[in-house]
């Protein structure tokens, strides 16, 4: 008797500056679609498992930066492959034990549909749990940045905030940001891409190392 083989799900990795893959998922706040987040920035992030120590510190940390994210027009959406009942029990436990309320919805991705779509399952790290992934999606639904961290390393919330500030500054002022940039620091003027504009650049009065590396202060 032949067995019917279930083909494995296609593993995909989302790509920067392309539409973030659409999904519909059960969350602790009800059923959500990615398109529900249009017109807002969104940080979609995954954690390996509920009721685990590093993940708990991260949830508390995400909750603590949530007000700062809201000031920037950013929403948070968590995900793990645990059930919605596990999520509910865990966030209630976090609030009971630490006093921290988790204000954002958490996807219960039991079938690993969203995790697979976003490349959150990395078999070398874990065949069953998501790694610590972060996806920054803009108000038009375009994926603008992504971070993948291992199971053992909790993420840095100040870096996530800095990344959002950088993207929003780039969008507003059409500039780039240099290494270790933080709001208030000089920004990078986009490099000229013709010999004519390169010649003009060195005379334009910016703070330049050379024609391709110039900074300015934002007004």
């Amino acid at each position, binding site marked *: 008797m032949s067995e019917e083989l279930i083909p494995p799900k296609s593993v995909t990795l989302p790509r920067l500056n392309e539409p973030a893959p659409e999904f519909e998922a059960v969350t602790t*706040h*009800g059923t*959500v679609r990615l398109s529900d987040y249009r017109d*807002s920035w969104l940080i979609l992030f995954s954690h390996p498992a509920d009721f685990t120590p590093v993940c708990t510190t991260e949830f508390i940390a995400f909750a603590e930066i949530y007000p700062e994210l809201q000031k920037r027009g950013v*929403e948070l959406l968590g995900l793990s492959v645990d059930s919605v009942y596990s999520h509910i029990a865990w966030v209630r436990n976090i609030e009971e034990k630490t006093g921290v309320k988790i204000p954002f919805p958490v996807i219960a991705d039991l079938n690993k549909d969203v995790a697979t779509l976003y490349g959150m399952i990395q078999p070398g790290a874990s065949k069953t749990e998501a790694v610590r992934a972060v996806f920054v999606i803009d108000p038009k639904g375009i994926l603008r940045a992504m971070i993948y961290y291992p199971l053992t390393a909790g993420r840095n919330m100040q870096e996530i905030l800095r990344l959002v500030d950088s993207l929003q500054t780039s969008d507003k002022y059409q500039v780039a940001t240099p290494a270790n940039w933080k709001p208030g620091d000089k920004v990078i003027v986009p490099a000229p891409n013709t010999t004519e504009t390169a010649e003009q650049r060195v005379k334009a009065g910016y703070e330049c190392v050379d024609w391709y590396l110039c900074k300015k202060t934002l007004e």
Partner: protein
Amino acid sequence: MACINPDGTLTPTATLVLKTAHRPITVEEIAQSAGLPLYQVRMSLRELVASGLLKEENETYFITEKGKKLLH
């Protein structure tokens, strides 16, 4: 469903959304009036329309008779 409790009563979020829809209203106006984020309004509207408590027409929403009865 997130908007309707197992006993058929409305959740606080659903109540808030329905109360704003006494006249045809857009998603953005509901979000501003109810003080809710856009994603939560869109989630709620989907369920409330599916439940027959709200009607959608030309991207505006208004409460149905069924919605009014449940609200009161």
